[in-house]
Each structure stands twice: as structure tokens, then as C-alpha cells.
């Protein structure tokens, strides 16, 4: 069942947006909060990259996806546009599986 968590996540994301606009609370301007909040997406997305690349279910795995991530990394370093990075990653995995 995906609908319940889906709608809860949507409500949570909207509430956070509304909270920023409606309740300018002191604690949000706290330097520690200001420092922590930008680090959250970096840490969570990095963890997602690691999990989606180097694991299958509850097992660690090293397969075509690792090569795909490396190629995507090169595309990022070359400042390729977002969609090019994504396509480069997917195409690499597809190619590695072909050979």
C-alpha cells in the first residue's frame, strides 16, 4: 500500500513549506539549525546514491550500476546538464549488461 505514506509525505512537505512562510519562529534562524538543514539533503542523497548503487535488497553488490555511477560522475565533472547525466548513467548500465 503506497497511497497512505504517499499522501502523508505530500502533506509533510507542504506543511514544511507553509511553516516557513507563516511562522517565522526564532529557532529557524538559530545558527545551528541553519548549519544542519543544508547538510541533510547532502547526507540523505549521498546515502541514497550508495544504497541504490552498491546494494540489492539487504546484500551489498558490485555490478553494472557502479560503472554507471562512475560515468555519471564524469558527466557531472564535465558540467553536463541534468538529463545528460541521468541518460549517461542509464545508458552505461545498459551497455555493461549487454557485453
Amino acid at each position, binding site marked *: 500500500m503506497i497511497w497512505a505514506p504517499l499522501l502523508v509525505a505530500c502533506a509533510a512537505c507542504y506543511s514544511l513549506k507553509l511553516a516557513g512562510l507563516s511562522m517565522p519562529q526564532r529557532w529557524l534562524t538559530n545558527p545551528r539549525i541553519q548549519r544542519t538543514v543544508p547538510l541533510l539533503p547532502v547526507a540523505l542523497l549521498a546515502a*541514497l546514491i550508495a544504497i*541504490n548503487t552498491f546494494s540489492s535488497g539487504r546484500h551489498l553488490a558490485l555490478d553494472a550500476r557502479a560503472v554507471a555511477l562512475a560515468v555519471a560522475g564524469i558527466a557531472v565533472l564535465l558540467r553536463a546538464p541534468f538529463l545528460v*547525466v541521468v541518460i549517461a548513467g542509464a545508458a552505461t548500465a545498459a551497455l555493461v549488461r549487454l557485453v
Partner: protein
Amino acid sequence: MAATPTWNQTRRAVIRDALGIGIASGAYALSFGAISTTAGLSIVQTCAISILMFTGASQFAFVGVIAAGGSAWAGAATAALLGTRNALYGLRLVSLLEVAGLRRIVASHLIIDETTAMAIARDTPKAGRLAFWATGFVLFALWNLGTVIGALATQVLPDPRALGLDAAPPAAFLALIAPRLRAGEPMAVAMAAGVVALVLVPFVPPGVPLLVVAVLVVLYGLRPAR
């Protein structure tokens, strides 16, 4: 000293930028639609996320957790954690937007990375407000259009894995965080987060490593200054 641009020139520039960023986001939404349906969500669910959640990183994380075998609740928690930065954006936009009532309800939904960046980059509050609303509406329209097309496209594809679509989310996440990794601290945090998540994978249910990483980074960020 350069001549001050007229309001017409400013308006044209704002609209042009909004269209540019909207088209780029539409392309980005294509991959969201494709990744979401590949992860097992229906087309209706995929479109509902883009309409109701409307914040890219959270959306990708929600379907990314499900794609990795995690529970949808773990995906929801991750999406909400990623959405916390929108609260900070809202705080910055309060004085600029000056919205109340229905307009505040609508404006809230449009507070994301792109609209905030476009709004605060303008020289005058009037141009900033126009940039916020123009970027918000253009992006909302093209984001949802891109999602539908991306979701429908996967229906006609034979095997998502053969096309490497399971490798698309990490590439997308990497492109998302790359601009934030130039400084030393975020880079170190990202590396540590990836290692911690992988170490936990064999020992806890899918999705849980992300929540542990979230708790650790909050503890790290809130640590007392020395």
C-alpha cells in the same frame, strides 16, 4: 554606470528566465516519471506526487527508497526530511512575498529550490515577486507535464533494467548534490553518509539506513560549537 532597466525589460528577462528554468525542470521531471513507474508506482500515483509534493529531491527520494526495496513509510520519512530546507526558504521569502490568506496557501506550495533562487536573485522586491510567481507557475506546469510523459513512456518500454533505468536514480541524485559538494564539509558528510548507509544495509530493513544517517547528521549539525 549602466542605465537602470525599464520595468518592461525586467519583466521580459524574468519571464525568459522562468521559461528556461521551467523547460530544464520539465526534462528533469521526465526522468522522475520514468523512475517512479519503474519503481512500481502507478501512473496516477506518480502524477499525484508531482502535483501534491512538488519538490524534486523529496520526490526522487520517495521513489528511490521504494526502488531500493524499502518501505513506502521509510520513503515518506526521507522525503519529509529532505523537505525541511523548504521551510528555511519560506522564512527567507516572507518579507519579499508579503502574502496572506489564499495567496499564502498557493505561494507555500511553490516554495522550492528554483523559485527561491530566482526570487532572491532579483534587484527589486517587485521583480523578485514576479520572478517567484512566474517561475512557480511555469515550473509547476512543465514539471507535471514532464512527469506524465516520463511515466507514460515507461509503459511502452519492454524491460526497464535492460535499459539501465535502475541506474538512473543514483545518477540523478549525484547531479542533484554535485553543486553542494564543492566545499570540504559537505563532501566529507556525503562520503561518511554513503559509507554508514552501506555498512548498515545487511543488518537492518531497507530504508532504515537512511533514517540512521538522518539522525547522525542532525546530531553532527546541532553539536555545540567549541
